[in-house]
């Protein structure tokens, strides 16, 4: 790792090397220092421009649109769409009217879906990571196989589950009805109330390996001596898990749960591949709902207002979460 071999050609990679520049002119001091101050900004510049272009400017723009009556008539020239003030918001939160009622419904569906999915992803990921912590025969193979759902592209994974959930030809009904005789007939999974559970199952199947991956990495940071010392003191495996593993994983868990929450709450891919542009009532996740309000009914102003409300909600939850978790961490890493 000693990359300091003495004979080196002039460092071509970077122009602002602290050395006096070639070209005869002696450079005054100030520009050098200025360049040194400017360097970090130069390094960040590409990232900043891209974030501005793709995330921040569109976001501000989205907020502007949410105050406009932007429908398909104005899509060629969005600037000419009339201002509508808070109308889009007012309609979105009138929960006794059809638009607001549907939004509120899909919000609750998304909350339930997210809670279940995050809880199961975290739980299964934790269990699997802990069970694979110690060396035993086949551990490497299991670890690789458990990561397969994460590695599969979302759409191929979800399409396969969609096939399994087909009413007549799917594996799920074949097992439940034909083999285990648990159901009297073959239920629908992709329409009706069952669709919610189908969505949760697919989301957990696809999502838990990410938790597993992060927690496996987190477990590697726990010094083995802790376990040895605990074993000396007579602590059994279960006690070691409770007293050493779980507390050590807390920082990982704090980030992991937040990330899982945000990803799941915003998840568009899974319901979109499963149900297409309009999800069944029971599985009408908010991202699909907004997509439909914007692109299918061509009411972009209203869709944007709903997106902004969603963002505000996520900001609020994140802020509360960060406040709660950082207080607990407190002095550990000020």
């Amino acid at each position: 790792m000693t990359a300091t071999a003495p004979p080196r050609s002039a460092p071509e990679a970077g122009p602002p090397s602290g050395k006096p520049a070639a070209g005869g002119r002696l450079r005054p001091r100030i520009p050098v220092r200025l360049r040194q101050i400017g360097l970090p900004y130069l390094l960040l510049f590409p990232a900043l421009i891209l974030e501005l272009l793709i995330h921040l400017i569109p976001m501000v723009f989205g907020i502007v649109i949410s105050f406009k009556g932007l429908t398909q008539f104005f899509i060629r020239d969005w600037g000419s769409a009339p201002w509508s003030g808070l109308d889009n918001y007012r309609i979105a939160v009138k929960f006794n009217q059809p638009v607001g009622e549907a939004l509120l419904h899909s919000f609750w569906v998304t909350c339930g879906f997210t809670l279940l999915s995050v809880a199961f992803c975290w739980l299964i990921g934790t269990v699997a990571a802990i069970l694979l912590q110690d060396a035993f025969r086949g551990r490497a193979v299991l670890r690789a196989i458990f990561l397969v759902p994460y590695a599969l592209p979302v759409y191929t994974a979800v399409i396969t589950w969609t096939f399994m959930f087909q009413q007549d030809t799917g594996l799920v009904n074949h097992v439940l009805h034909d083999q285990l005789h648990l159901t009297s007939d073959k239920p629908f999974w992709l329409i009706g109330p069952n669709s919610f559970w189908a969505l949760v199952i697919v989301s957990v199947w696809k999502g838990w390996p990410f938790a597993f991956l992060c927690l496996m990495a987190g477990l590697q940071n726990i010094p083995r001596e802790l376990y040895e010392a605990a074993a000396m003191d007579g602590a059994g495996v279960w006690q070691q898990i409770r007293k050493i593993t779980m507390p050590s994983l807390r920082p990982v868990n704090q980030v992991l749960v937040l990330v899982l929450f945000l990803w799941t709450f915003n998840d568009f891919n899974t319901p979109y591949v499963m149900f297409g542009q309009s999800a069944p009532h029971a599985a009408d996740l908010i991202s699909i709902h907004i997509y439909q309000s914007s692109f299918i009914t061509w009411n972009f102003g209203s869709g944007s207002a709903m997106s902004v409300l969603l963002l505000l909600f996520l900001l609020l939850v994140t802020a509360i979460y960060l406040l709660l978790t950082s207080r607990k961490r407190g002095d550990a890493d000020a």
Partner: protein
Amino acid sequence: MASPKSFVWTRRVVLTLLLLFVLIPVYVMLSSSLKKLQDVQGSFKWIPSSLTFRPYIDIWSTVPLAHYFVNSLIVSVSATLLSVAVAIFAAYGVSRYRFAGRRLFTVTVLSTQMFPGILFLLPLFIIFVSIGNSTGIQLYGSRLGLIITYLTFSLPFSIWMLVGYFDSIPRDLDEAAKVDGCGPFGALFRVVVPAAIPGIVAVSVYAFMTAWGEVLFASIMTNDSTRTLAVGLRGYATQNDVYWNQVMAASLVVSVPVVAGFLALQRYLVAGLTAGAVK
């Protein structure tokens, strides 16, 4: 550590159940891709009555799969390379320099992770269309537009992870390189980058998978000639019929390179997460 019997048995049972949960869909994908159309149209059978490779031949003509494949490959590889390059510079800046706005930058970039994609889909769509109208640079419907979009998706996570990784590389190393006559960029490429290879590989894997699997922007921002696999696979479902055996065959063909690549590199991902993000 000597595990007690109860623990070993719990482990066996739980891991077996998990293994089934993970592998059943994979088995369905594989076995169905080898069935005749009439076999996937009837009730599901665990064991195919007869095997055929026909779906693997038909998938290329039912939809222009090869074309979608190339599109996905171009978009994902470009987005990955650019994203990783941009992330390396940014992470180096954040990790090695103290400057005004450092915290603001990290917080801003990380918080873009929480934006619902749907919030900036439409504005971005309008921005791309108006850039095309006013400058002639076609971003909407082009691969370029998709590449730029995707490269920002993995950027926050990549920067975050690489900052952690670069922080774990002793500063003395690149200070020494600078004393020996390297500029900051020389130190970055001769010392920091080589030492951070596992982290960089991990970030590349993540960026590639993000781009390869994206559905929402791919379905709005592409046209017939730039369509990616994420949208193209829908072509196997016609008005009357879904060619499930072909869908499964195509899914498998699309998945195998990604899964194989991922499994080959997953060690780096765990190592990268261990050193970088998870601390």
